[in-house]
């Protein structure tokens, strides 16, 4: 019997853990974590262990399919007919050719982040010439965290420094306990941190995996994170006087002087923001070499420092006032603020590898939860501010920016720019990062996702189902003619109100895309292309270690994915399919130009116009270009991963960053004024009160609906560690876990509330939102805020192509009203807290 262990990368979620796969006579019989891979250090989760069942899923599609039923709908049988690759690609190429001179009519859903395809399909769409490229999956997640992190930390995401942190507050996230990048690595770091005494406080409407393991769970009313954060800031700044003065003076815009209009006072001529230097009582530009003691309080005729404005502003949010909003008792908030402030060790230092650094062992971490609101930007931003005022950003113990800087195999580093502020984010690939500072100039939209009306946002797709219904209202003269998508199930995961989404998909004349199995998105396809299992794929990028690796001094890594078994007959590598399509529509040279740029392929390693390559030849060029000829594809196929040690300044970039961080978003004023001019010209009555430099708490529509008594509960979504998108939902092992755990297929309801309604544990009831009503099974628990209904995972499948998943659990997004009132005017996040009724 031929038996072999083969190293590769897991693909059961976006993390991409290093695994070793035992193959016997060409059959995968076992998957283990690779102990040499820093991404997961040998550990695996339930999703990864069950990957073998995805590979041998009998419901996978292995040949191209075409639709024979022209009628499209959620419950329409497409009438699939098997076709050849030639026919499939000919059909798709002909449709692309038809819109070649109007490339904006192509919409590409590019989200396939387990491997290369995210970057390849973005390059494909750009080479074709469409601006409509959707580079994410969720209607909320990532909308705020990435733009905020790039201008206030330097990298793509954030992580508590679990190696040194002593007090971590998790707001609307299950970091290290139920979710997030580098999950299996940070889960072990989290366990170690808790064992050495780090306190974890979970502020969340639901006590799921994070809340149940935290030292303290503080239930909060959904959509009130701003009020919580501003109140914490008030106690720290005004009641306790606990903040890092030195950091604020020298590393933030706290001393920048402002006039009565809230704008910076600027030096005539240079236009540089001004600072009052208390050392010589002179007003100087922020970068004056004689500046010694920037004043962050006080202020005279020269203007008021932004820190003074912040202190005054947060005083409007005393805990007694915010208790009415958040339901967090004032005494609890004061205690948490004091514990947090005292644990911050302001002024303390630590020496690591001979380098002395500030030591601030506290942080507030947040992710999906606070972003998903009608005012999602301002629900999230003041949470980051809590770290900034404590000086706990990119220093040991504090909040760290992921993958922000590195020296090997290339150098990348965040940089300062406009007004001396952090402007250029750091990323190993030379692609434009999501950037909310200083923003773009708003203008009349050409794009059908209205990107031009969201000058501080990088994501826009949540607008599409809305604008498809109202093109004329926004002055748009065209719609989507063709959708090309990766295998992600966007129909149920990327938008809200399912009836509106169905209508949007029905409005698109031609849809083609990849599918692993026939999911709900594929039900609307005209052509389906089979997508290989991750155990059959080859990828240079094999997860999110380049975006969200573990932080701190542990080694970084680069790994590739290699097929451990021969792909099933009829399957092709998706990158080769994209090259074939690009060749057929005459954009192969442009596609190569963008791939060469994206993957830093230069000189002899660059892809050459007119040449065709296999994916193995491409990856071989990439590995040799990045790591030297000795590290070719054969080397990676044997070893799987290359470990890359980090220096102290790469792990803790804060003290080495030549830029200031914001505490005051002055540029919001100018962008808001410009946008007001454009929307007024367009006759749009938009409320732009989110364009303010200091966050205010503004209620979500659900908050007002509850107050009015129209509904009595708010539904929220939360994550499960054994579910990622639809990836494993038709996997029998994952299904077994979901059936044996009480929260997966049921909805959580507070026990006392349910009993008052006469609802019993396990009873079937109606869950009704303004968008739809669905039948659910209630799970009664004390681990949820009394005003909240908790919906987990990404279930509610109806596609016959997913027979194991079909009819189990519910799809949360379908409950969400989808209109401009529910879209954050800064970030385009769709409000994910929705008013509901629960009844028999």
């Amino acid at each position, binding site marked *: 019997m031929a038996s072999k262990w083969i190293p590769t990368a897991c693909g059961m979620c976006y993390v991409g853990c290093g695994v070793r796969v035992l193959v016997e006579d060409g059959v995968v019989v076992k998957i283990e974590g690779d102990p040499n891979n820093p991404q997961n250090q040998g550990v695996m989760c339930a999703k990864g262990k069950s990957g073998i069942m995805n590979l041998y899923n009998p419901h996978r599609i292995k040949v191209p399919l075409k639709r024979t039923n022209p009628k499209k709908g959620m419950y329409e049988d497409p009438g699939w007919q098997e076709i050849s690759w030639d026919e499939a690609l000919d059909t798709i190429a002909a449709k692309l050719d038809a819109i070649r001179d109007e490339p904006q009519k192509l919409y590409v859903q590019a989200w396939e982040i387990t491997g290369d395809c995210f970057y390849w399909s973005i390059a494909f769409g750009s080479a074709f010439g469409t601006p409509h490229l959707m*580079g994410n999956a969720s209607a909320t997640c990532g909308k705020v965290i990435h733009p905020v992190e790039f201008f206030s930390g330097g990298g793509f995401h954030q992580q508590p420094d679990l190696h040194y942190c002593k007090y971590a507050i998790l707001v609307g996230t299950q970091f290290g306990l139920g979710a997030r990048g580098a999950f299996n690595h940070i889960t072990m770091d989290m366990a170690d941190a808790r064992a050495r005494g780090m306190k974890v406080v979970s502020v969340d409407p639901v006590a799921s995996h994070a809340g149940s393991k935290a030292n303290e769970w503080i239930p909060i009313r959904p959509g009130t994170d701003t009020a919580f954060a501003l109140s914490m800031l008030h106690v720290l700044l005004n009641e306790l006087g606990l903040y890092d003065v030195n950091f604020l003076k020298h590393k933030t815009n706290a001393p920048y002087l402002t006039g009565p209009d809230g704008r910076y006072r600027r030096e005539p001529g240079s236009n540089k923001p001004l600072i009052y230097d208390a050392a010589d009582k002179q007003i100087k530009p922020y970068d004056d070499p004689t500046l010694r003691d920037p004043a962050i309080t006080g202020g005279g005729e020269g203007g008021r420092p932004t820190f003074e404005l912040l202190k005054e502003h947060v005083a409007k949010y005393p805990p007694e006032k915010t208790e009415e909003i958040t339901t967090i008792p004032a005494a609890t908030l004061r205690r948490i603020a004091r514990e947090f402030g005292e644990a911050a060790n302001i002024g303390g230092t630590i020496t690591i590898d001979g380098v002395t650094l500030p030591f601030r062992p506290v942080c507030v971490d947040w992710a999906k939860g606070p972003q998903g609101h009608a005012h999602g930007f301002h629900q999230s931003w003041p949470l980051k501010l809590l770290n900034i005022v404590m000086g706990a950003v990119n220093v040991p113990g504090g909040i760290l920016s992921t993958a922000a800087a590195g020296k090997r195999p290339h150098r990348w580093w965040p940089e300062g720019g406009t007004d001396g502020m952090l402007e250029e984010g750091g990323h190993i690939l030379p692609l*434009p990062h999501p950037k909310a500072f200083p923003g773009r100039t708003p*203008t009349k939209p050409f794009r059908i996702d209205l990107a031009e009306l969201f000058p501080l946002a990088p994501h826009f797709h949540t607008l599409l189902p809305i604008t498809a219904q109202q093109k004329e209202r926004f002055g748009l003269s065209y719609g989507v003619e063709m959708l090309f998508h990766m295998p992600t199930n966007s129909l149920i995961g990327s938008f809200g109100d399912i009836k509106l989404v169905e209508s949007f998909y029905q409005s698109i004349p031609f849809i083609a895309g990849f599918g692993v199995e026939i999911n709900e998105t594929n039900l609307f396809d005209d052509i389906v292309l089979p997508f290989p299992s991750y155990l059959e794929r080859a990828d240079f990028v094999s997860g999110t270690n380049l975006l969200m690796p573990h932080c701190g001094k542990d080694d970084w890594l680069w790994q590739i994915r290699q097929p451990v078994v021969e792909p099933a007959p009829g399957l092709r590598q998706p990158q080769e399919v994209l090259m074939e399509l690009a060749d057929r529509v005459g954009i192969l040279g442009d596609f190569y130009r963008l791939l060469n740029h994206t993957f830093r392929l230069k000189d002899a390693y660059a892809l050459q116009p007119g040449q065709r390559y296999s994916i193995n030849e491409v990856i071989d060029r990439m590995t040799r270009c990045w790591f030297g000829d000795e590290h070719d594809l054969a080397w990676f196929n044997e070893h799987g991963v290359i470990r890359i040690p980090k220096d102290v300044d790469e792990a803790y970039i804060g003290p080495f960053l030549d830029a200031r961080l914001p505490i005051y978003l002055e540029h919001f004023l100018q962008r808001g004024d410009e946008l007001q001019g454009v929307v007024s010209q367009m006759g749009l009555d938009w409320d732009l009160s989110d364009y303010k430099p200091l966050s205010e708490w503004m209620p979500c529509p659900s908050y007002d609906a509850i107050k009015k008594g129209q509904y009595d509960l708010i539904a929220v979504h939360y994550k499960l560690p054994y579910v990622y998108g639809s990836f494993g939902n038709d996997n029998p092992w994952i299904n077994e876990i979901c059936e044996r755990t009480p929260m997966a297929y049921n909805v959580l309801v507070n026990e006392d509330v349910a009993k008052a309604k006469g609802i019993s544990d396990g009873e079937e009831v109606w869950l009704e939102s303004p968008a739809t009503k669905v039948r659910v099974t209630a799970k009664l628990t004390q681990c949820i805020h009394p005003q909240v209904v908790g919906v987990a995972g990404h279930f509610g499948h109806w596609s016959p192509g997913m027979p194991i998943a079909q009819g189990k659990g519910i799809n949360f997004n379908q409950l969400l009203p989808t209109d401009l009132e529910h879209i954050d005017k800064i970030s385009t996040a769709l409000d994910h807290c929705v008013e509901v009724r629960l009844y028999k």
Partner: protein
Amino acid sequence: MEKEQLAINVKFMGDLRALLQRRTLTVTLPQGSTVGDLFASLSGNYGEPFASRVFTHSGALQHYILVFLNGQNIKDVGGLAAGLGAGEVEIVMLPMFEGG
């Protein structure tokens, strides 16, 4: 004496291909012109819809605008001050990468 003229082949990719409704363009500029001069000429031709997307408020290129001069990224050859010669200029407007 009038300066000798230079014909520059410009190729658009990304958003600009759709926005300008063209894939290529030939621009005639005086010998000695720079990439910055080319952008000034394009801004003149295509007006606010082009300029508002391409330039920052301070007049620099937006971070999502990528320019290749005969295959070389202009960041490596002098940026907007890079001199134009015979050959091709590729101007790409890339999407910001996302996540979530």
